[in-house]
């Protein structure tokens, strides 16, 4: 006699069109936001609410995510600020040009996750302590965290999950913060800067001064953005049929450039955390053989864009040795989408985008974008000479904006979409 079993069986899924790919909220992992709010109701911590105005975007399983437009506390990236500083500067510049207020704090440490993933010389309590100290510092200012690094973003999402699931960890971290006089606070959403760029992409496009229709872009989506705690990442059914994160691709499309696909898009960049610092043969080999050469062979892009510290670093810095070794001359410039968007809006390539810190040759890209880089470099060299004469002087935002956008090269052309949006 068959043994009766009681397995709840869902009915057949709604039919999909041939070739259509669909995720539903039912496929999503547990609802962490509901758990965060439950813990707040029990007095375990404070949930810092997303300030208005915000834009709602769609995440991997169709759930909405609130992206605050302003009043944001900028959790800077140590790698960006340290060796590709035009990345951070461009993010700030975009906020300023869109008239969106922000806070650039000194009461902020790195998330320390680069070191943790490289060396494991830390532990879950210390990592959660660092994250929650930074979140508490943001809360004290009344501003909402916007995180510049995808590793910080991914790691903080891991920390959030660990804190939600492990009371002993919450108790330990709460006690540490209490010694500093800080509350245990978790932001309602953990927001990456690239989500903000995505949310304001059409506003950026309205202010675009360069025609990018002849620019071909490959996109490298950052692993720690969409693989770690993946349900938070932005997806759009209209971008790659909702099968890949829409985050950078959506911005490129809004700016009117061409997105070119390549087969190794899912591969990581080769950063490796430990490897980029002390075992770079792996990093260089992977970056060149699995990413750069594949992009060049399959898509021949003018630029590759990504949205994380480690990815820009690895893909940009790894090309020199391969060129020297193999005699390959054509480099693929590597920028963040924030730098690319800023250039499109007329940002100075050196004062704002700080491209002189990049290794792969970006000059052909600037020329194709219609930017007279020789003249812009001459202006920047004048800036440097002035600074050398006055050791106490620094560049200011006013200095950075001194170059009028109409001065950007003889080849500068207004974007057709910009003309269409004119006056809006």
């Amino acid at each position, binding site marked *: 006699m068959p043994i009766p079993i009681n397995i709840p069986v869902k009915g057949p899924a709604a039919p999909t069109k041939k070739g259509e790919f669909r995720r539903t909220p039912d496929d999503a992992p547990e609802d962490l936001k509901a758990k965060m709010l439950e813990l707040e109701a029990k007095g375990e911590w404070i949930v810092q609410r997303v300030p208005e105005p915000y834009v709602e975007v769609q995440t991997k399983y169709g759930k909405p995510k609130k992206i605050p437009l302003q009043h944001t506390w900028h959790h800077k990236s140590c790698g960006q600020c340290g060796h590709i500083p035009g990345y951070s500067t461009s993010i700030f510049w975009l906020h300023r040009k869109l008239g969106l207020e922000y806070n650039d704090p*000194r009461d902020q*440490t790195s998330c320390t996750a680069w*070191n943790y993933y490289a060396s494991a010389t830390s532990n879950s*309590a210390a990592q959660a*302590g660092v994250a929650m100290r930074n979140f508490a510092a943001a809360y004290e200012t009344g501003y909402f965290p916007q995180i510049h690094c995808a590793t910080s973003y991914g790691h903080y999402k891991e920390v959030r999950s660990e804190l939600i699931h492990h009371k002993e960890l919450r108790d330990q971290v709460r006690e540490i913060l209490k010694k500093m006089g800080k509350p245990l606070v978790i932001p309602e959403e953990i927001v990456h800067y690239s989500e903000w760029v995505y949310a304001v992409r059409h506003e950026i496009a309205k202010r675009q001064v360069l025609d990018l229709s002849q620019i071909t872009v490959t996109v490298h989506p950052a692993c720690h953005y969409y693989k770690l705690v993946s349900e938070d990442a932005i997806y759009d059914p209209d971008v790659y049929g909702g099968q890949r994160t829409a985050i950078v691709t959506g911005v490129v499309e809004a700016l009117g450039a061409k997105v070119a696909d390549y087969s190794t898009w899912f591969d990581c960049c080769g950063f490796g955390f430990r490897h980029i610092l002390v075992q770079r043969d792996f990093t260089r080999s992977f970056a060149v053989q699995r990413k750069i050469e594949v992009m060049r062979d399959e898509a021949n892009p003018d630029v590759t864009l990504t949205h994380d510290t480690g990815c820009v670093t690895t893909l940009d810095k790894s090309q020199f040795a391969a060129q020297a070794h193999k005699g390959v001359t054509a480099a693929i410039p590597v920028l963040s989408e924030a730098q690319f968007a800023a250039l499109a809006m007329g940002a100075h390539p050196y004062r704002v985008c700080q491209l002189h810190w990049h290794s792969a040759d970006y000059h052909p890209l600037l020329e194709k974008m219609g930017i007279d880089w020789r003249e812009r470099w001459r202006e920047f060299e004048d*800036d440097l000479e002035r600074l050398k004469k006055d050791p106490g002087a*620094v*560049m200011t935002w006013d200095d950075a904006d001194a170059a009028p956008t109409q001065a950007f090269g003889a080849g500068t052309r207004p974007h057709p979409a910009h003309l269409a949006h004119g006056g809006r």
Partner: protein
Amino acid sequence: MATGTGTGASSAGLARATSGGRVERGAEPPFEEKLRLFNEVKADLRFSDYLYGCYECGICVAVCPSARFYDFSPRRIAQAVAREDVELVYEQMNGEVWECSQCFSCLVCPRKNNPGGIITIMREVAVKNGLHSAKEALEGYSRIIYKIMSTGTQVSPDMIRPDAFPDWGPTAKETADNLEVWRRAMPPDTMHTTSSSWEVDDKTLTELYLIWHLTGVLDMIKTLDESLHMILVDVMEEKLEEAGYPLSG
């Protein structure tokens, strides 16, 4: 499974430094010591969230960057831990865990395993117990640990030196040669720094030191590199005492 009796970080099988600073592997430890280390991995609060079994489908290997270049497999790690193969886990902690790129591509696992996360825990146990692999893998890495723990930022501008990054091409030298003026030639007023990536308040740094102190991270550094530990303690104790944080207990 029996519980290991534990012989502590100073037991056989762990690393020792030669007078030249090179790390030498010690004698093979007894099974009980390997079991103690394995149980330490399993005792981590994240362990139960990271391992649910293994279909042996190999998807994690297919997407793994390290598997393409090393004799490394996230599947082998997940399987060894799931089968509680103490000997193999010990062997992995003494070598291949350091080849993982920590990209977490392996989270595509249909069984919802997190091999990268298991490796993070295994590495932590290797560091905490002074295993040979940790010292070997992190040779040359001390300056990074010093920078992140003492300044609160990791790769600071003054670390971009042509001798440290020769393969980054001429920009490493240009950056080093022009560092001070290039740093002043950027608009955010928090970023005119050379020894840290941005300007970090003293109070903020002291709070970071307190976190390292209260969570046992300094003890981990001591196991890895005693000289570095002494330097960090010097830097941190003074600040913590000035701020009125008790250093005992």
